[in-house]
């Protein structure tokens, strides 16, 4: 495992009416982040929130190329990003203890915070396909180039970690500065992660380390 300091490139916000960020996703252009009672679309170039959808948004957010997925209470909502309409809901695998959400390979990946688990579920039925154990509280979850990353935030310590999806072994770790948490994360598919700054109501861009 390699451990290094997380390099924060840019910080967006704070935004009016947003006291916490609970989930983060990226649709190729905009960063979507959950702030309790709405989903906000942030332009990462201008740093402005361009629009918002009024849906309950208590934890992780994901995007499958067409729809947004958003955890609210103990359900995962499938949302049309143009209208904000909730198209369907499935039960969340952690029964409400769920935190992060990611889309990859036709499945949803759900972090269960205090259980230190990541579940792979069927996005149509919510059925759990398999479960990966971590050894830290899981916040955000994301897939990029076949790498599975998750945020941790346990006590006062927080990291972005790459884990082996088969064994849960930690392969890389980006350590956040003391007292700074990660709530929600998503890669931009390239060189950056977008993360919620736990408790601060801001969104951060963090450099993704280059692989040889």
């Amino acid at each position, binding site marked *: 495992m390699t451990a290094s300091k997380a390099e924060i490139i840019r910080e967006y916000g704070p935004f009016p009416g947003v006291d916490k960020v609970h989930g983060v996703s990226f649709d190729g252009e905009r960063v979507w982040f959950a702030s309790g009672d709405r989903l906000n679309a942030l332009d990462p170039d201008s740093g402005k929130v361009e629009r918002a959808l009024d849906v309950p948004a208590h934890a992780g957010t994901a995007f499958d190329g067409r729809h947004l997925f958003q955890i609210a209470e103990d359900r995962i909502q499938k949302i049309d990003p143009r209208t904000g309409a909730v198209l369907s809901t499935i039960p969340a695998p952690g029964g*409400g203890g769920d935190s992060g959400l990611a889309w990859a390979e036709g499945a949803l990946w759900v972090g269960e915070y205090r259980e230190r688990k990541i579940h792979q579920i069927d996005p149509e039925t919510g059925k759990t396909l398999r479960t990966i154990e971590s050894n830290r509280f899981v916040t955000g979850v994301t897939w990029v180039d076949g790498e599975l990353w998750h945020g941790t935030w*346990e006590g006062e310590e927080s990291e972005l970690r790459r884990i082996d999806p088969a064994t849960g072994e930690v392969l890389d770790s980006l350590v956040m500065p003391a007292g700074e948490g990660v709530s929600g994360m998503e890669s931009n598919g390239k060189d950056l992660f977008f993360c919620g700054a736990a408790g601060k109501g801001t969104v951060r861009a963090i450099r993704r380390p280059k692989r040889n």
Partner: protein
Amino acid sequence: MDSLITAAGRALASGDPLGALNRVALREDPPALALRGIAMAQLGDFPRAKLLLRRAARGFGTKEVVARARCVVAEAEIALASRDLGWPPRRLAAAAATLEAHGDRINAAHAHYLDIRRLVLIGRLDAAEQALAAMEPALLPSALQAVHGLATASIALRRLRAGAAQEALATAREAARRGGIPALLAEVEGAFSTLHAPAARLIANGEERSLLLSNVEALQSSPALIVDACRFVVRDLQASVSLATRPVLFALARALAQAWPADASREVLIARAFGSKFTDESHRARLRVEIGRLRAALRPVARFSATRDGFAMVPRHAAEVVVLARPVEEKHAAVLAFLADGESWSSSALALALGASQRNVQRALEELATAGKVQFYGQGRARRWTMPTIPGFATSLLLTAPWRDA
């Protein structure tokens, strides 16, 4: 934090404890226990709330020091709301220091305000004022700004500064409106009403009228000689003599002041000072001794001349003598004054606040209960005392604040 904890926290913050309970009722993990504790406290079940918060604090890992400290702050707030003033302030101070060290300045400030409220309740106004001066409300959320205004006002009220109290309450009202917390706004409005309720009675030239706090404040700069039965003090603009520990002398001073400018007869003085209906030679001798003591004690503000029937009071500097009395005269007025805040008190907390022995306070409470002026619930050490009607200061719970950043 996870999804249901977020949802429950939002429900609590918007004043919906039942909505919060619905979401975490069956969960036993520490954050859920803490939220359930806070919800139970808001619903008024303090013992259950305390238990849940203790379990939550124990459940958090050793690295989750901030979450633990927040539990301690919440528990301290419950202790304050249930008037358990014996709750160790050192634990609260330690929690505040932890929160500050980890950059949670909002909850640290919340902890400081809890301590300030405790200091006000136990009558340590100087210490409370000092602690308030160290706070910077402008940097805090509006709920805590409202608390700052309320604390400032409660000190001003107890110091009889109506103008300052009015001003602080206006600030608190505005902050409470911005914060949109109904319980807090109700507390501010309740405090405002004390400004418009009779605070004392003025007895002068054989006539009585009731005074608002602002009138009492104005009286501080009046040129009259004031015999103040709210504080057991005799004062004019030049000097002030406390007779708080000398009830017989104060009773004599008050009887003489109420008779002024006429004299008071020996019979009246003996009845007032010694509580006897008949008078014999020994009473007259004792009266002479006590008048001698009163002369010595009040030399800076008044003289006493013997008349055919008794004695007369002659102010030294003032042109007039008045008596300031409680709005309603009754026994154990000090105990009632504390219970008047509308909360339930243990006799030990009252004793601490009054600086009296617990046994004396218990006797006073039992007497007041027989007269139907106070009521109690609970047995033994858990017994709590309340007043049937609730005028004045209640302390609303602001427990949502500790979980602002949870």
